[in-house]
């Protein structure tokens, strides 16, 4: 019960579609406490990713992820660009050179990705950023893999944890990113980056679960 290269490609393509569908929603969230571009930024990045995929479909999973990361770095811009780029590049480095991976590998990959995001953005849990979706998701994956749960179960738990983390950003006062400029006024709004991160992990759970 492993995630194959084809699964990874399917995941990226499915996520691109989710972003296209939710572009306005993410923008709307960003308009509340940011600058109304998160949806467009992510969508622009993944349009480019889709263009890069055909030439790289025969590469190993790590390479594919790094290609995605580099495309995002040169197309997204803003805070989201380097951060999402880091997620893919760090995850790709962790599961480099393989054509499939297990739950345990994914837990490590997402942990490396999260560490990368934290090193870059200096955000902690509770700062109302994508980190609030990432950390609980990593914890859930690690626990699931320690408990020997199935890939499908583990992914579902991590998606659920990311969702809870995303929802938990609502009452928070932002301390990092553009929302922090609003001070107290940032409370009461869901963080757009945490939302797109939940969507990323939720898409993984849905796409990869179907296959195994």
């Amino acid at each position: 019960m492993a995630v194959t290269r084809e699964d990874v490609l399917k995941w990226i393509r499915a996520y691109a579609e989710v972003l296209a569908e939710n572009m306005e929603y993410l923008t709307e969230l960003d308009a509340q406490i940011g600058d109304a571009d998160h949806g467009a930024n992510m969508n622009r990045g993944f349009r480019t990713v889709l263009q890069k995929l055909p030439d790289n479909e025969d590469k190993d999973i790590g390479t594919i992820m790094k290609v995605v990361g580099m495309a995002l770095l040169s197309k997204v811009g803003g805070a989201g660009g380097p951060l999402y780029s880091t997620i893919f590049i760090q995850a790709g480095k962790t599961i480099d050179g393989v054509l499939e991976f297990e739950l345990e590998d994914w837990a490590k990959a997402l942990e490396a990705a999260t560490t990368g995001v934290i090193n870059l953005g200096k955000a902690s849990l509770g700062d109302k950023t994508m980190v609030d979706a990432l950390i609980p998701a990593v914890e859930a994956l690690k626990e699931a893999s320690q408990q020997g749960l199935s890939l499908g179960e583990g992914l579902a738990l991590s998606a659920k944890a990311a969702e809870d983390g995303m929802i938990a950003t609502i009452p928070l006062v932002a301390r990092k990113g553009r929302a922090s400029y609003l001070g107290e006024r940032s409370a009461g709004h869901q963080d757009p980056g945490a939302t797109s991160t939940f969507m990323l992990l939720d898409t993984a759970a849905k796409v990869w679960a179907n296959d195994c």
Partner: protein
Amino acid sequence: MKKLINKPEEVVNEELKGIEAAHPDLVKVYYDPDYIVRADAPVKGKVGIVSGGGSGHEPMHGGFVGMGMLDAACPGAVFTSPTPDQMLEATKAVDGGAGVLHLVKNYTGDVMNFEMAADLAKADGIEVEAVVIDDDVAVKDSLWTAGRRGVGLTVLMEKIVGAAAEEGRSLQELANLARKINGQGRSMGMALTSCVVPHVGKPTFDLPEDEMEIGIGIHGEPGRTRMKIKPADEVTEMLLTPIVEDLPFESGDEVLLFVNSMGGTPLIELYIVYRKAVELLEAKGIKVVRNLIGPYITSLEMAGTSITLLKMDDDLIKLWDAPVKTAGLRWGA
């Protein structure tokens, strides 16, 4: 959405085409990655000054490329910081052998992308220094947050540091000068209307006909507080007081007073604000020795104003007065 544009996705590209067509004597424009460099770049032996940020703040930054100001500007998507590859190429294009200074407005995205670009440029053997601008007193500063935004002071810094670079000062001197300017300049802004980001198609925030936002940034983001519209004189005081108190600016100080339009506010209103600002400063014994009045760091068509105060000294005055020849700011040349 009432805009003179074709497709939202094409706005920045078509703007760059317009700049390219309009100012071949001043700049060269490169595409994919997008950046604008002065026509005679790289200037041998001169430190290259590079800035950049989201588009929608015109004339900043592209309009400030040219003799006596920026060597290159990297335009991102509207209100979205540009990407490291743009900054890297721009840095390479303007490196005249004396290193390159990045002037970075303090936004998470700008800072991260410029940092990555600097790392890549250094790996290519280019000496790079970066100075982060964070002059917006509307934002409470703290170790635990992203800190203050970079706003109006950016324009003044680009002019002054650009003039100093033209004089042949070293990368380290220029970085120190930029940090000094950042240390003694403060800004605050307000909006009467939101703006419409082209790909969004509707106002970023809704502001009732009788309300205004105080403490807005330059990306159409909401401000710190919303209140009923007040007369220009009260608004001016509301912006100026926190600026003066923050540094603080004190009796006897000589300052440059910059009254900026966010885009939609016409010059006639800026002069009304300027008049009141001078009156308030004079009452505190602060002397306005230089000024800048107009739309220089904008948020698309947003109506509103920002005020920036920079404490001046003989060196800064001399550098401010030095010739500058860009599309957006020009004198003495």
